[in-house]
């Protein structure tokens, strides 16, 4: 790419040299006109064509603002003018007009004339190329068409003079020139880029436009008259002169229009700038709100943007924690029930904030909290609503206070001050309100995120609790000769209040406890684990169920709160003799299935934790039943009998029927049968209470003979 440009450039240079040689020879020798003059023009056209390609490539490569382009043209113009001025000081003989042709009077005239023509030609090319960018900046079809028509007319005008002698005039080139001028005027109105300039850029445009206008007017004047420059161009190449002339006239118009147009836009430039920075900062903010979860960073952005956009002198944001029923955290027993957290302070200290907004009691803060809309204090010294601000005129002249209102209520307040009184116009308040809205969203977001993190944490804690509670239940079923055992326990929630456990006395006797803590969830789970401790500690010491329950009640009653209680069924089975002794602390009765008969065994009793001492002890009864071989005993919690389908409960009858039907099977199969029947009954809905089943099946007295084998 670079090589190709270099090739173009050197080719152009070569062609220029050729042209110069022809001119030098032409000065000495009287060459016949016609053929050679055409060759001269073609060489010039080719050279400028190549130069245009190089300029175009250079211009396309560089991203530049309209103002920079104007500046660049101005610099180019100044350089060329200075150079031209210097060469004219050299004093050349000039041209002699003869028979509509120009004859250079000496060699320096040829040389200097060629240089001037080349320089102006190149400037015209650059201007032509750069104005193209400006005019086509937003590409509306009509604008493009006008521009291309103008370009076409310029080129046509230039080419139409290709065989014309320097001082000759013809009809067609004249008409084309006129048309080109019309389109130059049309295109000079294409200044869409001016509106979007910043105020600073507009000032520059104004200056550039002015000097460019002057510069091009001078060129126009020179080209129009009988100046050396005009003659040099005409002598060098008539088409080039037409091209330069048209471009210069167009540039004059365009620079003039740019100047005038900018002049008109200048008064509104500031407002336009502000609007633009408002839009862009709101855009930045709303993007930040959705992307950045660092709350402090967001608040900082909100306050610093407020400072910038409305040109406030101080700004800060307060987050208001309104007290719920239990009061805001860290809140002294305040009357209003809110706590203020200052964030994003800009050019202000906590002490100064306290001076403006009294830390307690009525003031502008409580006023805005009450009114729930922006309050503007135009003059701190004279506002009757807030007399306390009178003394603070050293801090600020005017003050705006905007509440942050979300759907859950007031979440904060945004403050901005200016040194001047009446510093805030309506627009400022609107902008600050818009920022406040963004801040509200940010605060809301961060609150939601905090909450969801907290929920997640709780969820994990519950999973841990669930794991731990599972470990509180027996990990293995005890293995006792001639006894089949199976058990299941499923909590309704993550953790539950059901409990079962075994105590192997090691001599063929096994203690089985099934319990249910009132309520569900975490509190139930705590008492359940306490129950486990009590059972493990006392169970081994007291081999009578009644005694165990009375001791356990003593232990539990001291720590259980008054509306909680534990129901417990404790059975000790002697697998050697087939006796089962039970005591019941308010728990569901034991289901005993013996052959074709089944019965609930329900000794008297009272729930643990309901009463202490004698009343409880007196209520507990102990009952012993003699088992027959293959008798089945089922202990369970109310999750079984109260399993529900609509208003209907699974109940004692269904449990008894299911157990009776399955009694010939193994303990494990009986347990499964009960679970399946419950599931079918509830139509597989999740159990809404904890559910526990323990099934015992006594195989009959152990055969000593069998064991010996």
């Amino acid at each position, binding site marked *: 790419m670079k090589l190709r440009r270099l090739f173009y450039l050197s080719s152009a240079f070569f062609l220029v040299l050729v042209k110069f040689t022809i001119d030098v020879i032409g000065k000495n020798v009287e060459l016949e006109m016609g053929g050679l003059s055409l060759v001269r023009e073609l060489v010039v056209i080719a050279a400028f064509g190549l130069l245009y390609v190089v300029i175009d490539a250079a211009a396309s490569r560089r991203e530049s603002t309209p103002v920079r382009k104007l500046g660049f043209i101005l610099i180019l113009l100044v350089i060329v003018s200075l150079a031209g001025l210097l060469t004219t000081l050299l004093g050349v003989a000039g041209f002699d007009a003869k028979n509509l042709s120009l004859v250079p009077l000496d060699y320096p005239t040829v040389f200097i004339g060629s240089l001037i023509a080349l320089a102006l030609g190149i400037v015209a090319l650059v201007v032509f190329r750069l104005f193209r960018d400006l005019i086509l900046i937003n590409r509306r079809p009509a604008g493009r068409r006008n521009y291309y028509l103008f370009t076409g007319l310029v080129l046509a005008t230039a080419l139409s003079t290709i065989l014309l002698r320097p001082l000759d005039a013809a009809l067609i080139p004249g008409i084309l020139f006129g048309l080109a001028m019309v389109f130059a005027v049309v295109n000079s109105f294409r200044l869409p880029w001016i509106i979007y300039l910043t105020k600073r850029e507009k000032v520059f445009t104004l200056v550039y436009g002015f000097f460019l206008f002057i510069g091009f007017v001078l060129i126009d004047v020179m080209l129009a008259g009988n100046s050396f420059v005009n003659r040099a161009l005409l002598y060098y190449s008539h088409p080039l002169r037409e091209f330069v002339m048209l471009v210069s006239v167009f540039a004059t118009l365009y620079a003039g229009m740019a100047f005038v147009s900018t002049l008109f836009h200048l008064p509104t430039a500031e407002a336009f700038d502000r609007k633009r920075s408002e839009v862009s900062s709101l855009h930045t903010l709303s993007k930040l709100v959705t992307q950045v979860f660092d709350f402090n960073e967001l608040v900082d952005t909100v306050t610093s943007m407020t400072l910038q956009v409305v040109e406030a002198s101080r700004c800060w944001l307060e987050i208001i924690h309104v007290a719920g029923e239990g009061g805001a955290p860290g809140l002294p027993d305040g009357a209003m029930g809110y706590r203020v957290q200052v964030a994003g302070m800009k050019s202000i200290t906590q002490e100064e904030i306290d001076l403006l907004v009294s830390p307690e009691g009525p003031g502008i803060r409580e006023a805005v909290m009450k009114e729930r809309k922006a309050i503007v204090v135009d003059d701190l010294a004279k506002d009757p609503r807030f007399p306390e601000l009178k003394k603070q005129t050293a801090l600020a002249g005017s003050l705006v206070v905007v509440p942050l209102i979300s759907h859950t209520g007031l979440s904060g307040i945004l403050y901005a001050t200016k040194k001047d009184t009446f510093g805030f116009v309506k627009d400022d308040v609107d902008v600050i309100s818009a920022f406040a809205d963004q801040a509200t969203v940010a605060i809301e977001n961060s609150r939601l995120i905090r909450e969801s993190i907290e929920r997640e944490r709780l969820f994990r804690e519950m999973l841990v609790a669930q794991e731990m509670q599972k470990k509180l239940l027996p990990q293995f079923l005890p293995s006792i000769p001639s006894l089949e055992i199976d058990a299941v326990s499923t909590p309704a929630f993550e953790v539950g209040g059901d409990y079962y456990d075994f105590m192997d006395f090691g001599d063929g006797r096994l203690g089985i406890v099934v319990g*249910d*803590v*009132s*309520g*569900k969830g975490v509190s139930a789970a705590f008492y359940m684990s306490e129950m486990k401790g009590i059972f493990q500690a006392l169970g081994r010491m007291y081999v009578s169920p009644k005694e165990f329950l009375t001791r356990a009640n003593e232990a539990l009653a001291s720590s259980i709160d*008054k*509306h*909680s*209680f534990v*129901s417990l069924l404790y059975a000790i089975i002697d697998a050697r003799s087939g006796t089962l002794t039970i005591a019941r602390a*308010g*728990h*569901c*009765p034991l289901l005993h299935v013996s052959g074709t008969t089944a019965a609930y065994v*329900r000794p*008297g*009793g*009272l*729930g643990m934790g*309901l*009463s202490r001492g004698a*009343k409880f002890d007196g*209520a507990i009864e102990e009952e012993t039943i003699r088992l027959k071989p293959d008798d089945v005993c089922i202990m369970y919690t*109310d999750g079984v009998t*109260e399993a529900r389908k609509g*208003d209907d*409960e699974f109940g004692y009858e269904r449990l008894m029927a299911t157990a009776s039907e399955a009694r010939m099977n193994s303990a494990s199969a009986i347990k499964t049968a009960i679970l399946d029947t419950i599931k079918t009954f509830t139509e597989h809905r999740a159990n809404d*209470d904890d559910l526990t089943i323990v099934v015992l099946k006594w195989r009959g007295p152990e055969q000593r003979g069998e064991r010996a084998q």
Partner: protein
Amino acid sequence: MSDFKIAHREQSSVNVLELKGYLDAHTAPKLEEAFQNLLKTQRFKIVVNCKELSYISSAGLGVFMAFIEDVRNNKGDIKLTNMTPKVYNVFDLLGFPLLYEIFKEEQEAITRFFEKSK
């Protein structure tokens, strides 16, 4: 399912709470509130009519336990009446008849208050 309602009326200085529907962990706070309101206004003679109570869970039973001590310390009582067999079974299973006076009819419970106060 967790439909539970309480109606309160006062009959010759005895406060009758009529319970209706399901009393479980979700609805227990309603009953708690009702008891709290009675205690706040120094009304300690309470009869709970369970005629239309269709279900009570352990959390529901716990509510009675939570207030009985306070009520009795203030020379009042909570008496229960008109239970359906199913509801009575739940109370009975836990041994509540040992702790509370339970009557078949509301009027019996009310009269009982006056027998004592005479």
